[in-house]
């Protein structure tokens, strides 16, 4: 049984119509018209237990709406949703016991009280047996190094410490599924690393299914092998990162180190990106000319000391994906066909 399963999930919102112009204010007052906005348009995917999935999309794509439906906050307009066999909105409390939720931008901790108090309350709410609670707390305390600030009021904690606390609390009741909505937002590099390490550990050792929305692409690289991308309410990509990178990342970088500065160098099929005398960086399109062919076509008279290739970062890949979703150029069509193919095979 899949941990999370969505089939043709649709969610529409109604908004009161606003009128412009000098009498606009009066018209808004008098009429009660609405416009309908489709936030989610027939989204379908399934996540198996133990998977760690990144849920991406530009702002307004429908990410938060999906998470809200999965956690039982919102009700879908149509379609089916199941989390660990439960329908979240009809079995909200049951679902709540089996999932953990961390909101990156909204705290669930008690602001003025020591961190441990929030944990204690959590234990009582979720009716966690004392022994299990202590064991889980000890585990989180150790991995996240929380002993120093466990008894500090939450308002005095740094953002990194607070996020660690939120994360620990969400796992105290050993949920099978963990939802994270931008968990590393605003954190410094060290804090982000700690959070990622912890999540990896939890996913590996406890088999907790993780679904994470984020704008930080390093999060994805570290934590998830599979990404699901939505845009304007529609599913755009669902599959392995490696595959996406391979397809979209047809641009490659080649860095050549020369024995001596050869001055201006022209390489067929490649564009100069950076010239540091002895060390020059070029880009080329791997689809047009394979790497080996490029190397074979290098001018013979050049005294080359070293050659290295660089892969495009996941950031670059996603950026190209987003850009393709905006423009309607030939690129987009190509990518559309290909990603749709990916969705089917997955």
């Amino acid at each position, binding site marked *: 049984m899949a941990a999370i399963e969505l089939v043709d999930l649709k969610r529409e919102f109604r908004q009161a119509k606003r009128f412009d112009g000098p009498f606009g*204010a*009066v018209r*808004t*007052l008098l009429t009660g018209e609405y416009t309908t906005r489709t936030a989610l348009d027939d989204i379908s995917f399934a996540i198996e237990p133990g998977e760690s999935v990144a849920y991406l999309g530009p702002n307004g794509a429908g990410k938060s709406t999906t998470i809200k439906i999965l956690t039982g906050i919102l009700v879908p307009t149509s379609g089916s949703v199941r989390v660990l066999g439960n329908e979240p909105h009809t079995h909200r409390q049951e679902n709540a016991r089996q999932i953990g939720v961390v909101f990156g931008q909204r705290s669930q901790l008690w602001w003025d009280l020591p961190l441990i108090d929030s944990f204690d309350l959590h234990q009582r709410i979720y009716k966690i047996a004392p022994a299990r609670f202590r064991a889980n707390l000890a585990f989180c305390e150790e991995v996240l190094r929380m002993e120093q600030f466990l008894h500090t009021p939450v308002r005095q904690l740094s953002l990194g410490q607070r996020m660690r606390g939120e994360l620990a609390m969400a796992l105290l009741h050993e949920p099978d599924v963990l939802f994270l909505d931008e968990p590393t937002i605003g954190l410094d590099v060290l804090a982000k690393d700690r959070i990622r390490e912890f999540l990896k550990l939890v996913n590996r050792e406890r088999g907790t299914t993780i679904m994470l929305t984020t704008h930080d692409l390093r999060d994805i690289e570290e934590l998830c092998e599979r990404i699901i991308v939505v845009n304007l309410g529609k599913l755009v990509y669902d599959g392995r990162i490696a595959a996406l990178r391979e397809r979209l990342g047809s641009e490659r970088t080649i860095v050549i180190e020369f024995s001596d500065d050869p001055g201006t160098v022209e390489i067929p099929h490649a564009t100069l990106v950076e010239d540091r005398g002895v060390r020059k960086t070029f880009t080329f399109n791997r689809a047009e000319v394979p790497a080996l062919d490029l190397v074979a076509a290098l001018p013979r008279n050049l005294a080359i000391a070293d050659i290295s290739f660089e892969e495009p970062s996941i950031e670059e890949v996603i950026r190209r994906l987003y850009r393709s979703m905006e423009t309607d150029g030939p690129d987009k069509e190509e990518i559309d066909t290909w990603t749709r193919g990916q969705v089917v095979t997955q």
Partner: protein
Amino acid sequence: MNVYVAMIGKSYRKHLVYRSEVWVRIAIGVVWVAIQVAVWTALIGEDEVDGISLSDMITYSIVNTVMALAMMDRSLAELDQRIRSGDIAVDLIKPFHYPLTLVVDGMGRSLFSALFSVLPTLAIAILFFGFQAPASPVNVLGFVVAFVLALSISFALACLVGMLGFYFLATFHFQWALGALRTLFAGTMVPLWFYPDGLRTLANLLPFQHLAFGPAATWMGELTRAEIGRNLGLGALWAAALLGICWWMWARIVRRLVVQGG
């Protein structure tokens, strides 16, 4: 100058969006008057007490309620919020004189509430309960001046409380306490004539009587010309003093904010 006029318009339109609120404000005003009229009917009925008749008290109630509606102010709660959150820094940067923008915003809201809350309430109240015309033009003039003074004093008091609240981080409580003092010493429900001597003397010394009792009594012609003059003079002194303190506190807050960096 045009900028400020435009801001009044904008403030007016901003308030226009909240349609349901308008009906409720009117309803609140009418209910206040209804309660007072019922109480005075039960207490005075056909008689006259201390020379005051029921229709006198009805007029008193209407005038006070209408003034209270006109003075209902929420921009100062916003001011406190903005000071606390630091958003005020943004306001201070803008090329407008901030306190003036507050006044202008208040004017926009007053315009809106005048059209949609105050006048309708007045009309309904007069329709249901009757009203007394002022005794003479002098009374009308006196009332207008008293009303302006009342607005100024009300504004100044709200400002002071807001700023004090900022120092003590307890605006809500201070406003509540201010409301309490107002209830007791402004004579909104019970005119100061009916107060026992001790309280009456105390009330005369405080600025609150200029918010309700003073203007209402002036309108009704229950004060002689000399008394009107004295009352206005005292009110003007209070207004000047309170506004002055406000100005001084505001300067200090700004300096403090600038020094502390919000």
